């Protein structure tokens, strides 16, 4: 049994400290995911904290094999709620796939390439963007991404295939 599984078992018995360990382990992943979808850093932090609170409330119901995917699902739903409530849906993607600072230092060419890629991805549909983000940026499996998005694994694979084909075409053209 891995450490994560042990902490989950203890948290399910009501151990708040074990849940704190889970926060240590996954909080940055959730924060980055939230930040990649929301313009505001504070909003991403709020979503992260809220994700863990919701997870605590439902920890006894947790039966997934992948706790990380479970957290992403909760975070995904909270982000949707956030935009629904604040009517700030138009801001989605503003920060999406922003070229990271380390790569910027590597050289101008690579940064330009990444910027072009990020701009291309922003042209995709909402669900296509989500599939690309979960599969390649957050590195979730097709089944886990399907759980987060509330779709089937086959749908995720098909969407992923079509999106990549589209991306290739756009990138080749440019």
């Amino acid at each position, binding site marked *: 049994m891995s450490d994560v599984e042990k902490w989950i078992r203890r948290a399910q018995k009501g151990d708040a400290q074990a849940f704190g360990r889970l926060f240590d382990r996954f909080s940055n992943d959730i924060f980055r995911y939230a930040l990649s979808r929301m313009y505001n850093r504070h909003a991403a932090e709020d979503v992260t904290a809220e994700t863990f609170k919701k997870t605590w409330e439902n920890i006894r119901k947790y039966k997934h094999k992948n706790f990380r995917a479970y957290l992403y699902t909760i975070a995904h739903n909270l982000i949707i709620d956030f935009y629904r409530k604040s009517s700030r849906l138009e801001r989605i993607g503003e920060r999406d796939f922003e070229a990271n600072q380390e790569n910027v230092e590597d050289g101008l060419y690579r940064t330009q390439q990444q910027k072009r890629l990020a701009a291309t991805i922003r042209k995709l549909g909402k669900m296509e963007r989500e599939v690309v983000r979960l599969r390649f940026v957050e590195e979730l499996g097709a089944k886990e991404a399907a759980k987060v998005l509330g779709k089937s694994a086959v749908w995720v694979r098909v969407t992923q295939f079509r999106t*990549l084909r589209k991306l290739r075409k756009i990138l080749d053209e440019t």
Partner: protein
Amino acid sequence: MKPEEKIKGLKLKESLSKTRKSRMKREVVYYANTNPLADKRFSLVPILPAVSTVMAIALLFLPVSILLAQSTPGSQLYPLKKFIEKGEGAVASVTGQKNEFKKLRVERRVDELEKTILQGNEESQSLAAKEVVETASEKVPDPEPVARRIKEAQKKAPTKEVKEKLGEAIAQLEEDARDASSSPTPLPEPTESSKAAEATQEAGLEEEIRSENITAVPTTPPEATEKVEAIENPEATVEAEIKEEAGSENISVEGLLKEDIKDLNIPDITGKL
């Protein structure tokens, strides 16, 4: 380079600052401590083995109980049915429902008899008739309807043997019915009208006693009677007292009377004297 590999390079490197992360952790742990986990929802899973066992037993016994109810004398399950019935009888005697049980039992026997007659199995019919005779030999409450049913079954019975046996049962039940009708009935509870009749009867008796000059024991002492008379006729009483006094002391009655009567404010009655 494949697009998916390029996309991987787009992962944000930003993360929560240490202070911010520790503050958020404190917040989350505090939330976890102040919001204890709710009790688990009711789940059937822990009691599933027990429920399934009960269901299995019920499913097993349901057909058996149906078969038992349908069994007739001569069938393999009939002894078991009788055995269970004995148990029922013991319970009925404890709960004070013996009469109801007896009635139910004799009705069951007659049902069995009717069933065997319909089936046409002579051996079973004979056994069922025997069972009816045995059950009827024990005093059955309300035997008349049962006797009627047996009479009807007797008409349908194909063999002489069965008819004779059923005749015995009918005779027994009819005798029980006669006994029940001839037994003294308990006295009814006194009603309002009966109480009134009783009161009238008592008044009649008192009158009868009076007409036969039967003196009743005085309920009041003689002194009390005198006092009552004095209250009713004060003048006569005073007169009598004065006469008595005068007689004993040789005093002129008339003079005394006048004076005393004046003092007493009693109307003058000396003229009358």
